């Protein structure tokens, strides 16, 4: 089992899509939302995912294919 912390950023067209619910339903992943900021035009959600490593990888691949941007919660760490 592995725990991974990620940030999902949603564009306007995806705000109404139940992406996180589907991630928990279609994959063997427990999703736990820790912090979020969602408006009608834009949103991000910081969450913790529990599951087998391969399953989390598969799930995140699916989330990305839906058009959601996925980042580590540290956001960009490459600095000037």
């Amino acid at each position: 089992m592995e725990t991974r912390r990620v940030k999902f950023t949603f564009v306007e067209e995806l705000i109404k899509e139940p992406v996180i619910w589907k991630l928990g339903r279609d994959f063997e992943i427990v999703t736990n939302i820790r912090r979020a900021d969602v408006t009608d035009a834009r949103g991000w959600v910081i969450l913790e995912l529990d599951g087998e490593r391969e399953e989390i990888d598969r799930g995140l691949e699916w989330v990305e294919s839906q058009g959601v941007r996925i980042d580590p919660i540290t956001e960009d760490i490459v600095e000037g």
Partner: protein
Amino acid sequence: MPDLKPVQESFARNLRCRECGHEYPLAPSNVCEWCFGPLEVFYDYEGIKRHISRQHIESGPPTMWRYSDLLPVDAATAVDIGTGYTPLIRAPNLGRALGLSRLYIKNDCQNPTWSFKDRVVSVASSVARAFEFDTLACASTGNLANSVAAHAARAGMRACVFIPSDLEQGKVIGSAVYSPTLVAVDGSYDDVNRLCSELGDKYPWAFVNINVRPYYAEGSKTLGYEVCEQLGWRAPDHCIVPMASGSLFTKIYKGIKELAWLGLIDWHGTRMSGAQAVGCSPITEAYERNSMNIRPQKPDTIAKSLAIGNPADGYYALKTMKDSNGGATAVTDEEVVEGIRLLAETEGIFAETAGGVVISGLRKMTQEGHVGEDEVVVAFITGAGLKTQEAVAPVLQPPLHVAPTIESFEEKLQAREGSLPLAKAV
């Protein structure tokens, strides 16, 4: 157990989540376990107040460590290669060109590895050593890499430095000379970012901008302190700062506010404005949309030291702008080069691309009426131009090639300039 005395003997008391306020002991940690918000160093300000004075600071060393009471590590154990207390110079020529009567340049090119990153890395490496890490690591587009490699050398630590494989030659050599493990990563910017995030989880290293980030970021405050002291213990009216992650921007403001809280300066509402390159301007874009939500971008600009598409402190930079009645602007790559040349030709300072962003950004904000003619304006120049020669080389006039005779010299000069200077009277 690590000897935490150098950290504990500072006025730093704990780490605090910027979102939910949850407190943690001083440790190498950067994320709140409750809400995953970023952690920040919190100090015993009452203790500092009793201890600090202008005279006390003025009698300190001519480096950033004169402000050690406001940093999270004891100065006696600092990894110090002579960083900080860089010149703040009046810029009358540039001021005239831009229509500003009280313009100053904070020239942070004059740090040991020629960028402001020495400030943050001096703190990060000092703390990392106290926490008994043996490896100092970073992911960088150049300036940070140079500074981490240099400080690790001084501290006797191993350095592991990750850079994109298309980096400017000056920045590669500026790291390699200190003999770190220098890793050029093939792949997109996102690939480099992801790799380093994973490495940060896997190896017990002090990644300066991951697990020791709360301490690292505190080093930037010294730019705010210095400017106030150098203005005769007075805060600027308006700061113009380059923005990448947004951390420097917020910390300069924090530094100025701290001096006011401690009664070392009067508070008169310093305005904070930031500049980015159009090819990577997620903070400016959100500001212009009047939103606090950053839309991540894929960087594409010659200002590589500012090329952070998903800035960790973007939200806090926007908040600082709002609180301080500041603003943000973005300039094209052509304007970046114009800005570098304008600063060089008017004030004799050769800045890297981030400096070009600041100068052209300042010009734009002045033309738009956002910067007032009589404001005491400080433009922060954070890195030296020799590191990014590629950016300006194509547009500079090549030297006159002449034979070693007066005739040849005059012929070529006449051809280029259309006339000859007056000769001495015989």
